[in-house]
């Protein structure tokens, strides 16, 4: 499946089916990450049920505390 993530075209393996899968694939599960799929922010309880499709536009922003 090919996705556009943060403006870049990225191909992910077939096992990546949901937002949860995507976050674990990129090892972001333990980060405070906001995920937007096709301009809609996904709530944390929807991560496991939000299916991804070829061509989806995804933005991922993770929080950090330093400064």
């Amino acid at each position: 499946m090919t996705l556009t993530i943060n403006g870049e075209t990225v191909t992910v393996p077939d096992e990546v089916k949901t937002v949860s899968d995507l976050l674990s694939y990129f090892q972001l599960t333990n980060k405070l990450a906001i995920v937007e799929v096709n301009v809609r922010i996904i709530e944390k309880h929807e991560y496991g049920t939000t299916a991804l499709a070829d061509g989806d536009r995804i933005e991922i922003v993770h929080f950090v505390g330093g400064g």
Partner: protein
Amino acid sequence: MVIVGAGALGAGNAEALVRAGIGKLTIIDRDYVEWSNLQRQQLYSEADAIARLPKAIAAKRRLEQINSEVEIEAIVGDAGPEELEAIAAEQRPDVWIDATDNFDTRLVLNDVAYKYRIPWIYGACVGSYGLSCAFIPGRTPCLYCLLETVPQGGLTCDTAGIIGPAVQMVVSYQVAEALKMLVEDWAALRGKLVSFDLWTNEYAAVRIDAVKKEDCPTCGRHPSYPFLSYDQRTKAAVLCGRDSVQIRPPVQREYEIDELAEMFRRQGLQTEANPYLVAVSLGGGKRLVVFADGRALVHGTKDVHEAKTIYYRYLG
């Protein structure tokens, strides 16, 4: 305008805003200048590190050299609910700039900002990565709403260091939004949480208006401002990314720095002092730094119990 924190982001924001010629700037910070700060904290010099000047004081001195027409107020202290509410009530700032290094303080700032209906601009960075977002009462959801959409537990302490360009990038996002607010060009505001990585050349932005929660305790219909109602700061706290613990006395004290320094010297301890603080070497890599208000930093430990023991041994 008020800047909360005078580290890398605080110094960068302060210099840009003072050069832009804002009327008054208040800067609050609990720390003092150390050598390791000089790589990215642009207002400070080697002389400030040698003198261990509190960052708020060193920042004020430098900013007054840059533009003497801007009134600068320096507050050496912890930015807790009491302090921030006092600033909000007395000064009614136009904008708060977030230059803190932790989410505890940001959630307090978020509550104060929405309670007093003053916009605040989040900024943070680590490594080559940074992000920023403007939170505007009545126009945008708040930080609490945003954090509610993501799973908790990832708020670890960032210890990776920061490169200067990442600091400047976050500062640029923050200052640009602040200037738009000052000239009341609300339509020009970004309305997005924006992030970048200058090393991997990534950029992302997320529209935040949809995450507003009607039952949010900070910006919802019936706000309770939970981070103000009681003092969530523990009396002793490990400082993020540093081998240090801050101890706040149960009641605020007013120490005469000279007498305090003399007391340590009489005990044969290597002691240095400036008008704002006393720094004492305790051996074993441990140092105790005491401010005039009785607040202390114990360096060389992350163990709160050990830090408290040291504090009470010398100041109990």
